[in-house]
């Protein structure tokens, strides 16, 4: 018996220890896409380069979000990353100890994507495009943008219309942050494609509403009706064209493979720690008013947390009531629902709610988030309420009934006040868990604190500072909440004692 157990444990240990290791190699002989075989390459998930590398085979593909690609190479998490070559040329790669190894990967054109049923809108867009290309305005405009994206961001007429003309609707446009095509400057969305699209909407009379998604989530979001237009420098591949109605191409694209430069990695500036911090502070928060984005994100996090807590308390109370019902027909299914809710990761529930259950409704990500969090944490809160209620001695109920109180009166005047102290004590941990969990809402196009830092990171390509800042803010938030709830707990327990 012990022998067999030992064998099983040994086998398990062997299996566990076969987790993949890390490797570094000489990169000097890599000069084309085929040479990337056997190397680790960071790409944006679901992008064209991802697909291309999967087709080549033998490449260790590291799939990250766009803003993390460069950092991954810088920190040695991947040997290469593939960026848009125009974007790569704009960056000051040398100072970060990086270089462009080769260019012109998968050269092709990109356009806006529409739903298949929306051919009228697509045709309108194409007409507009043709008109401004024909009159020669387009090329000069594009050249100006390409020469100096940052100053163009001010000169452009990047003002999205907030009100549609009669007979026109508001277009929901799904985007990914991708400098210089789509980016935030001074807390305002701008960029080549944004400018162009705003201009189209201005002429055609549509109102615009931009929503930030992960690149890989754009097409599902379009198909499930969450957005009307994809505007994300999306290349027109055959596979995508089966799902999406592309406009005529209006911009070119191609990739550049970036790796650590040969002459010893961090040859760039190695300033002192304090100077680097100062620099980071300026880049991430002061310049382009990153702090405003962060403040907005914090506000969204707080708002979602508060609404979710309210929803979860209500759902929890309802679930607790049903679960404690004396009818098995009611309590049993409720128990199953609670187990199912607690058995699925919140992220999966969130995406199911967003893309499947509320796919066709025009509910914003915030409300879907509040409902998902309400349901998920409702299951947890419900169980906390139940154990709290069950910890009240049965004799208390009997005593109440003996005094001639109705069941509801006993609950309200006797059982609940006793349970409340215990409930709040346990609930404190769950509430803090909920607040921390809101960091996943970026998945459904809500710009919360974490997503705000992601957006800033995508622009400044700095991993360190925004992350530290965000974690400090979360820690403060959690501590403040904990302290607030402890005060409430103390007040409640002392009040119930006075009765």
């Amino acid at each position, binding site marked *: 018996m012990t022998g067999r157990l030992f064998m099983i444990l040994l086998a*398990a240990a062997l*299996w*566990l220890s076969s*987790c*993949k*290791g*890390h490797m*570094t190699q000489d990169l000097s002989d890599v000069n084309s896409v085929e040479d990337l075989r056997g190397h680790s390459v*960071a790409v944006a*998930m*679901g992008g064209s380069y*991802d*697909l291309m590398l999967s087709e080549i085979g033998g490449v260790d593909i*590291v*799939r*990250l979000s766009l803003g*993390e690609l460069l*950092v991954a190479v810088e*920190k*040695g*998490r*991947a040997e290469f990353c593939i960026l848009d070559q125009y974007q790569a040329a704009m960056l000051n790669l040398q100072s970060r100890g990086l270089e462009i190894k080769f260019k012109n990967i998968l050269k092709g054109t990109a356009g806006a994507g529409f739903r298949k049923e929306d051919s009228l809108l697509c045709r309108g867009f194409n007409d507009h495009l043709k008109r401004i290309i024909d009159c020669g305005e387009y090329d000069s405009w594009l050249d100006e943008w390409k020469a100096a994206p940052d100053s163009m961001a001010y000169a452009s007429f990047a003002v999205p219309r907030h009100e549609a003309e009669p007979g026109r609707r508001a277009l929901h446009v799904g985007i990914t942050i991708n400098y210089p095509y789509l980016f935030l400057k001074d807390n305002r969305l701008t960029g080549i494609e944004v400018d162009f699209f705003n201009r189209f909407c201005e002429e055609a009379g549509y109102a615009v509403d931009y929503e930030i998604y992960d690149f*890989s*989530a754009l*097409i*599902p*979001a379009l*198909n499930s009706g969450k957005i009307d237009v994809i505007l994300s420098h999306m290349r027109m591949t055959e*596979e*995508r064209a089966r*799902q999406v109605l592309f406009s005529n191409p209006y911009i070119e694209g191609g990739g550049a493979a970036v790796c650590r430069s040969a002459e010893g990695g961090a040859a760039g500036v190695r300033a002192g720690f304090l100077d680097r911090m100062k620099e980071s502070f300026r880049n991430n928060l002061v310049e382009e008013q990153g702090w405003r984005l962060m403040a907005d994100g914090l506000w969204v996090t707080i708002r979602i947390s508060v609404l979710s807590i309210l929803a979860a308390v209500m759902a929890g109370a309802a679930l607790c009531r049903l679960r404690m019902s004396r009818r098995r027909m009611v309590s049993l299914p409720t128990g199953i629902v609670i*187990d*199912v809710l*607690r*058995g*699925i*990761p919140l*992220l*999966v*529930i969130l*995406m*199911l709610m967003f*893309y*499947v259950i509320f796919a066709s409704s025009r509910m914003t990500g915030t409300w879907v988030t509040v409902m998902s969090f309400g349901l998920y944490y409702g299951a947890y809160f419900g169980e906390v309420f139940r154990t709290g209620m069950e910890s009240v001695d049965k004799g208390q109920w009997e005593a109440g009934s003996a005094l001639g109180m109705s069941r509801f009166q006993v609950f309200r005047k006797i059982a609940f006040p006793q349970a409340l102290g215990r409930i709040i004590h346990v609930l404190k941990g769950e509430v*803090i868990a909920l607040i*921390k*969990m809101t*960091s*996943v809402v970026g998945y459904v196009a809500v710009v919360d604190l*974490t997503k705000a830092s992601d957006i800033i990171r995508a622009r400044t390509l700095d*991993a*360190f500072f925004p*992350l*530290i800042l965000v*974690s400090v803010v*979360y*820690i403060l938030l*959690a*501590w403040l909440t*904990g302290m607030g709830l402890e005060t409430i707990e103390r007040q409640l327990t002392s009040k119930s004692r006075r009765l």
Partner: protein
Amino acid sequence: MPGLRESIYSNLLFEDRWLMLADGLDNTIRVSLWSILLATLMGCMLCAIRMNSRRWAGVGVKLYVELMRAIPLLVLLLLLFYVILSEVALSPMWIAIVCFTLYFSAYFCEIFRSGIEGVNRGQWEAGFALGLTPWRTFTRVILPQALAKIIPVYKGQMITLVKSTSIIGYVAVVDLTKAGDLIRSRTFDAFFPLLLVAAVYLLLTLLMGALLDLLEKRVTPKSRRI
């Protein structure tokens, strides 16, 4: 239902996509098991330090626990990946394991502590009165009683850990969730991969719950034949 058959074909069978899910599940289970193992060990150690040291070590552990309980797991993971362990040659999977170990050991430590402190002090005194050494008192008298309190909570936290592994896709580990995302990014089908992933997680956590219930029955003194 031709729609369902087509979904199964394009999401699972075409280009052997089910293999991606299988690999993802493998990674999810690996990270979960390693993290549970290491976090439990570390939680025990932290708990021992916290309960035995009244000086700076105990205070240090307390601060550590408070810190871990206040920081979101995702932020910790990104911090470890890009900042703290960025110069260390650890694979993303091991960084994920380190992250979960650090984070959940704090929770486990508190669970163990409240379980042990929940046992009446008189039990210690009774053990000493019978002439048992502190260690024997702990293993023979206190621990069996504490386990009955610890295991139900520990179980819940373990299942939380397994579900939390759904975020490791952020550091380029292809786990179950990420595998579902990957398939989604190819088939552009919002519905089927998500539902499938949800079902697999549900099965995984239910299975784990059942296993832990078995364990609970074996170790709690009430249900054990002595």
